[in-house]
């Protein structure tokens, strides 16, 4: 399902995705709290103004107005940075959107450390917060292909759907002709025994980078990509974990409450499973700066990540 050529880059993923979606689906409304430009919603705003609604710099209003727009028969896509959607408007997400059956999508951009401004603009805990809400759908897509396909699924998924977004130069790694995103499905990107690596979202890009280094070093490993954090496919995750003596989880999220926690919950409920090493953002304030710099600071750059995976396997 991966493209042989992994070098394609899309410069404005959500501009294309939102315009394509709104052109086909007249019931979809792109909503913003004064961040359309920074979430790359350009064409919809300019060319389909009836499907673009800005509520001003007010995220609680963004989410609650969006919940109302859903109750008028539309499919709202509330876009903002992940930190504001979850931290500032968590109650509105849970109560206004999360308690009913109507499709309401919240798209959190620049999640984890994918924002140069430290702490206040970074959302290292969003997945954990949202997956605690009953009956919610939580998706962390890994690239342009999956982001687009997951959006197409989200607009027909009942209830609150929280998804992490990509902006700016975003790789096209999954082959649009062969890959099909299905809610709840996990994807084995590499079968190779050895250490089992489980990743999601941006961190699946990092896992692929580390995988290339591990291959060069001759370290056997397997890769499982888990885009749907909730409802988690417990069977597929457990099957993968119990095929390995060591599991390493990799996520662009705190190692508390995110993918690593999810995997350990699933495995420990069964008991007698593999050793699980959680790699991601530690439970401490991350630095700011370029993504490359922050990754280096946190030991998430490809060479360090590969070494940490190799160490965990020993």
């Amino acid at each position: 399902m991966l493209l042989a050529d992994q070098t394609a880059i899309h410069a404005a993923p959500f501009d294309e995705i939102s315009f394509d979606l709104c052109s086909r689906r007249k019931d979809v409304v792109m909503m913003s709290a004064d961040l359309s430009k920074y979430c790359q919603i350009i064409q919809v705003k300019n060319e389909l103004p009836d499907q673009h609604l800005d509520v001003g710099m007010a995220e609680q209003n963004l989410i609650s107005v969006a919940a109302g727009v859903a109750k008028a028969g539309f499919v709202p896509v509330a876009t903002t940075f992940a930190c504001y959607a979850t931290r500032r408007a968590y109650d509105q997400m849970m109560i206004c959107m999360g308690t009913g059956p109507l499709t309401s999508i919240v798209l959190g951009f620049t999640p984890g450390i994918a924002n140069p401004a430290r702490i206040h603009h970074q959302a290292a805990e969003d997945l954990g917060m949202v997956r605690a809400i009953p009956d919610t759908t939580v998706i962390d897509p890994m690239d342009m292909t999956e982001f687009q396909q997951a959006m197409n699924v989200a607009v027909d998924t009942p209830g609150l759907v929280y998804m992490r977004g990509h902006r700016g130069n975003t790789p096209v790694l999954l082959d649009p002709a062969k890959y099909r995103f299905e809610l709840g499905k996990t994807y084995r990107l590499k079968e190779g025994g050895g250490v089992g690596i489980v990743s999601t979202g941006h961190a699946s890009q990092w896992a692929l980078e580390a995988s290339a280094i591990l291959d060069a070093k001759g370290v056997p490993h397997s890769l499982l990509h888990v885009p749907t954090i909730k409802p988690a496919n417990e069977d597929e995750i457990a099957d993968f974990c119990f095929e390995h003596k060591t599991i390493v989880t990799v996520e662009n999220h705190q190692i508390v409450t995110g993918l690593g926690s999810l995997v350990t919950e699933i495995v420990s409920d069964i008991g007698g499973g593999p050793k699980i090493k959680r790699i991601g953002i530690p439970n401490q304030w991350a630095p700011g700066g370029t993504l490359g710099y922050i990754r280096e600071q946190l030991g998430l750059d490809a060479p360090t990540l590969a070494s940490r995976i190799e160490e965990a396997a020993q």
Partner: protein
Amino acid sequence: MNDMTNQRVLRLELLAAKIRRNTLDICMQRGGYAGQGVALADVAACLYFDEMRDDGEGWFYDRFILSNGHDAIMTYGALAEHGSYSMEDLRTYNADGTWVDQSPIEGQLGFEITAGSLGQGPSQTAGIAWGERMKGNNKRMYCLFSDGELQEGNVWEAAMFAAHQKLSNMVWIIDNNDLQATSRTQDVLGVEPVPEKFASFGCFARRVDGHSIPDILAAFAEAKTITDRPYVMVLDTRIFAGIDCLEEALPRAHYVAKHQADWDAGLAEINATITNLERQING
């Protein structure tokens, strides 16, 4: 007042009295937000039995959104008269295991949003109003919220948005009873002058006597003449207004427990009011 107007008002006063009786009947079982239900009976009668249009299928064409969940008691009292709830079911209000929630969840008949987390009704109603207008229909949206909710920032974010979008298909009704969970609103965190605040946010706002049915009807009529702004009805109400003995005994009751109120005296008074109104209507 001509005869037709008089009959219209008398009919609504009778419905309001029956809503008050239903409120006592429901709350005397296990306690409840009786003071609010009684106080809001006048606006409820106007809203459910005069202002909102029928959809021809036993429900309403226009949409009512309750923001403060505890005022569900008002909706219950009104919908019992409407025939869409039975008093038998409503008497289970506040009982363990009942589906008749004190503060209902989205989807229960008559409740469009989950309203227990305060301050979130105005913005959701604004979203509904934006969407209904976008669909090109002439539905009107009504949202009830309380003066205490004005302390929540989300309400003012919604006011800015609604005025900016010129949502004139929407009426916000504020239950301005100077009472919140622990004390008088003016003692906890004053919110007055309420009409002036909403006017400065770009809404059309008017203070209305919440216990005058002619004044409430006039405000609803005026709202339809405002075509470039949302309409905010600042409804001055008094806890238990319309049942003198209870208003005197429990003027600041946010929640009335079973043993606090003299339910029998209240029922006797409201039954006498109903008999008197029926006599006037029937000549």
